[in-house]
């Protein structure tokens, strides 16, 4: 295992009133656990607001966890000081959703890509230059791209630059936070192929965060489905699609617009979510929208139960069958 996340929690305080007193907590990440195998891809899927980006930030220590463990290879990195964290920063990198927003518009592509190398202390200019050329080639860009600015590139090209930048420090794990959502359909396939090639060629592991189930079903080895700060179901990809167990997973899968006209829906569409996301403090997070809800679901804390070799589900009803 390259990464093990155990019982991760991140709560944000809600402050009200003149004195900014704490009125409650937004449980953005509430007891999240998963594992990523070396060289494989874990897909973290969920709708906006479910907490998946917060999870990404916690793993990178861009946010501090309130509770839980983050274990990279054999080391607990959740409580390391900034100094001790430094060697791990080269191991875990991130590619963001907005390729334009994540590139400094005043730095050339070359400077952006090399920035990590300079921070790591690779001082010799000619070594950096060689590495830069190699990286650009790896992501399918011409060497003269190094001297151009972000605004001169298309969305797909900018994303390639972001990927080159992430790879510049030879990481083992790359967190991809919706890396293709902002790109045109015909470019998405190119970037997906690139990510796969890089994984095969460099032995990379990915945490692939997305709301696009079609991409996730194509790319990922295992999938964790997240809803309102909690993992509702996790399983190997094939198994999740073959035999989904959690009612939320079932609704999510039936809502994917499938490019096959006339395909009949298997399950009912989810009712719109009108509940106040802060109000649910006990019981299942899916209450109010679940088609198989019972009174017990509103009272009890629902455990993450094993229903298969690597298949877990957070629903007592689904765990029975």
């Amino acid at each position, binding site marked *: 295992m390259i990464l093990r996340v155990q019982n991760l929690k991140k709560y944000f305080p809600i402050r009200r009133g003149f004195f900014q007193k704490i009125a409650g907590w937004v449980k953005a990440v509430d007891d999240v656990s998963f594992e990523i195998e070396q060289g494989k891809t874990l897909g973290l899927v969920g709708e906006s607001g479910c907490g998946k980006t917060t999870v990404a930030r916690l793993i990178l220590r861009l946010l501090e966890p309130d509770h839980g463990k983050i274990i990279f290879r054999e080391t607990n990195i959740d409580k390391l000081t900034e100094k001790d964290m430094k060697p791990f920063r080269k191991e875990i990198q991130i590619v963001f959703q907005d390729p334009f927003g994540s590139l400094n518009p005043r730095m050339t592509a070359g400077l952006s890509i090399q920035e990590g190398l300079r921070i790591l202390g690779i001082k010799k200019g000619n070594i950096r230059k060689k590495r830069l050329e190699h990286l650009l080639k790896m992501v399918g860009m011409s060497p003269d791209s190094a001297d151009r600015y972000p605004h001169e590139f*298309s969305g797909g090209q900018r994303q390639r630059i972001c990927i080159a930048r992430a790879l510049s420090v030879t990481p083992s794990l790359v967190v991809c936070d919706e890396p293709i959502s902002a790109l*045109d359909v*015909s470019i998405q396939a190119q970037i997906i192929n690139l990510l796969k090639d890089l994984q095969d060629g460099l032995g990379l592991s990915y945490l692939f965060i997305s709301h696009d189930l079609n991409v996730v*079903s194509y790319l990922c080895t295992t999938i964790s489905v997240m809803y309102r700060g909690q993992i509702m179901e996790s399983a190997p990809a094939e198994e999740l699609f073959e035999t989904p167990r959690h009612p939320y997973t079932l609704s999510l899968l039936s809502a994917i617009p499938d*490019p096959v*006209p006339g395909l009949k829906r298997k399950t009912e569409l*989810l009712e719109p979510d009108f509940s106040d996301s802060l109000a649910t403090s006990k019981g299942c997070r899916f209450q109010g929208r679940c088609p198989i809800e019972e009174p017990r679901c509103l009272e009890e804390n629902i455990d993450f139960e094993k229903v298969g070799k690597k298949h877990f589900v957070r629903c007592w009803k689904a765990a029975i069958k």
Partner: protein
Amino acid sequence: MMNDNQTLISVEDLKVYFRTGHECARAVDGVSFEIRKQETVCLVGESGCGKTVSALSILGLIPMPPGELAGGRILFQGKNLLELNEKDMQKIRGNHIAMVFQEPLTSLNPVFTIEDQIGEAIRIHKNIGGGELRNRCIQLLKDVGMPSPVQRLKDYPHQLSGGQRQRVMIAMALACDPDLIIADEPTTALDVTVQAQILQLFKSIQKSRSMSVLYITHDLGVVANIDDRVYVMYSGMVTEQGNTAQIFHDPRHPYTQGLLASLPSRSKRGKRLYSIPGTVPNPAYRPEGCPFHPRCPYAIPTCGREHPKMCDYGHAHLARCPVLFKNKKPVPKE
């Protein structure tokens, strides 16, 4: 072109260019499509294809300058909308043709309540007020599937979720019972489950109100669930048109074929995804001849010289590729 009384709106050879300095971007370069009564038509394509500019042109919402009408007509109820003055266009907007935009948060006024905004949409065209106006607002919110509609009236946009705001936008578009709703990527900013609900909503209101819908999107998955007819656009032109089944099961233009082949899915696991090489051309620097030819696996020298004409495969299925038409496989039985 079918021009009988079943046609609601007919866009004929529309050309809209944008001149900035020394550049001329031919955003829409000879686009024709029609929308019949009570049908849903999709304009699908990637960035720079001209779908949004085409739709905005119907409602005269393209600022001119820098936009420039370089040709074509848009026929609606016997009139060419491109020749109407602003006063006459205002009678059409909201009243006969309404629009739902992509970003509900930026399209709704943050300092007015929901009741005020829906009410405004009604009052512009109809002279009603007070209790009757309020009841109409409540009924519209019910029509768009908003629970507790009475409570929502006093809410401000920031108090609603993305899906709820989009429902308000649709309610505003429905306020005056338009003949046509133009929906420009109405679900792109929304989650997949909300997207499914909104698509369902469009289908049901189209039926109950005998309206037509022009649905603009880049998402092929959405298009497949829309029914009726599709126009695939690329770089300012329509490259293929037909009904949904034809486009998805029997695509006849290399671009459509490439797009469908490049969609990731569970069934393609383990296999390399097909991807169309190259990128969408800059509208100001479109290649000669067929705009798709530099990326096309079937391109021959004439593709780079001659503007390709639409080829008819029968049953209203057309594709703008003479190369594939010449070597065509038989059309499958309907």
